[in-house]
């Protein structure tokens, strides 16, 4: 979706803030992160659905909320969407039903963090592109989740690396299946993306699924 999260290239945000980490972060950031990680162990959603939920808000709201407020806002909506919570429970703060058992305890959380969630999958279809091939990205503006940023649509680049097949976020985010596709690192000249103000030597790399690419 062409949301406010797709920030690449935007103007107006000023200098990069707090480059020296001078301000210690509030404790609730850690708790928001931990709640997000711990509830993921229910397996009712996936990382792509989490990102989709964080993006799915009015652009003005997205830019007003701080980082972990977006996480919490998205987490509440995901938990309602997947029937772990009701709107009424969120409103009242009172559980209607206390009979659940958490999917992970302290030890389970430790192993889940160590295990992670690899996204590479075996597929039967051979990759369409090889390292060195010239490709062009598609110019599409889906209303749903996608990982092809606006600034890189309809652009020509060169395949730098093939990563095997990975879970496809555009479907996985909407619970429409993993539909793994070949993933490539594609190199674009910075000037092709950003015009003559970019340095002639500089390049920009993106990791892009085969469905985002056609031969050029």
């Amino acid at each position, binding site marked *: 979706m062409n949301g406010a999260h797709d920030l690449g290239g935007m103007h107006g945000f000023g200098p990069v803030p*707090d480059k020296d980490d001078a301000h210690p972060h509030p404790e609730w950031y850690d*708790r928001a992160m931990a709640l997000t990680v*711990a*509830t993921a162990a229910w397996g009712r959603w996936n990382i792509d659905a989490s990102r989709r939920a964080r993006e799915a808000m009015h652009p003005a709201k997205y830019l007003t909320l701080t980082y972990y407020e977006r996480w919490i806002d998205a987490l509440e909506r995901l938990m309602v969407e997947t029937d772990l919570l009701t709107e009424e429970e969120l409103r009242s703060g009172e559980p209607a039903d206390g009979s659940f058992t*958490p999917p992970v305890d*302290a030890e389970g959380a430790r192993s889940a963090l160590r295990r992670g969630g690899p*996204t590479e999958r075996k597929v039967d279809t051979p990759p369409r592109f090889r390292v060195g091939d010239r490709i062009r990205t598609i110019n599409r503006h889906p209303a749903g989740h996608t990982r092809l*940023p606006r600034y890189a649509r309809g652009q020509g680049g060169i395949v730098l690396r093939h990563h095997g097949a990975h879970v496809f976020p555009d479907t996985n985010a909407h619970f429409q299946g993993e539909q793994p596709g070949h993933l490539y690192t594609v190199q674009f000249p910075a000037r092709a993306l950003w015009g003559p103000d970019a340095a002639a030597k500089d390049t920009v790399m993106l990791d892009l699924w085969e469905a985002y690419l056609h031969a050029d």
Partner: protein
Amino acid sequence: MSHEHGNDTPHREHSHVPPDPALRVQALESLLTRKGLVDPGALETIIDTYANRVGPRNGARVVARSWANPDYRQWLLDDATAAIAHLGYEGRQGEHMVALENTDSVHNLVVCTLCSCYPWTVLGIPPGWYKSEAYRARAVREPRAVLEEFGVRLDDEVEVRLWDSTAEIRYLVIPQRPAGTHGWTEEALATLVTRDSMVGTGLALTPEQAGDAP
């Protein structure tokens, strides 16, 4: 100032203030633990992991070994996931790693324009600036200006390679080894490797900057 609303309706003004996020998180945590949806011990484990166990010291150890050991460096460049797991760092947000080598002619810089993808296993939770709108918006369009803000001035001859983490591949920059460190142990070398140097917004410290030679 307009007096349209008068002074008798402060509650109306107040109702437009968003709820305090700290209270909202506290309320959610309380609801989830009482409903049995999360285990309090799991929360403490997750917080402790990223506060005390997983952070940029992991990445510094990887980089220091790659400086000291050419075979390890080659392995890291060929198969970063395996080479990093060999030192015990694996798991969430480090499942598929790629190492990027800075040289005299190439400087690598990593961003995530769409969210905040970051190699947790070797660098921990990203700092606020990495997640900021300014960094996400600008690093990809004007990396040299952003680098200058971080105090990194590159020669025009150097190619900036900007990596936008759009998939589940996570990037670790291997900064250049500083001069004057010949014969240093891995432990000593690791003290020169800053978090920012492994994102590309910094360089490794010189022995003088680090303040003490081993």
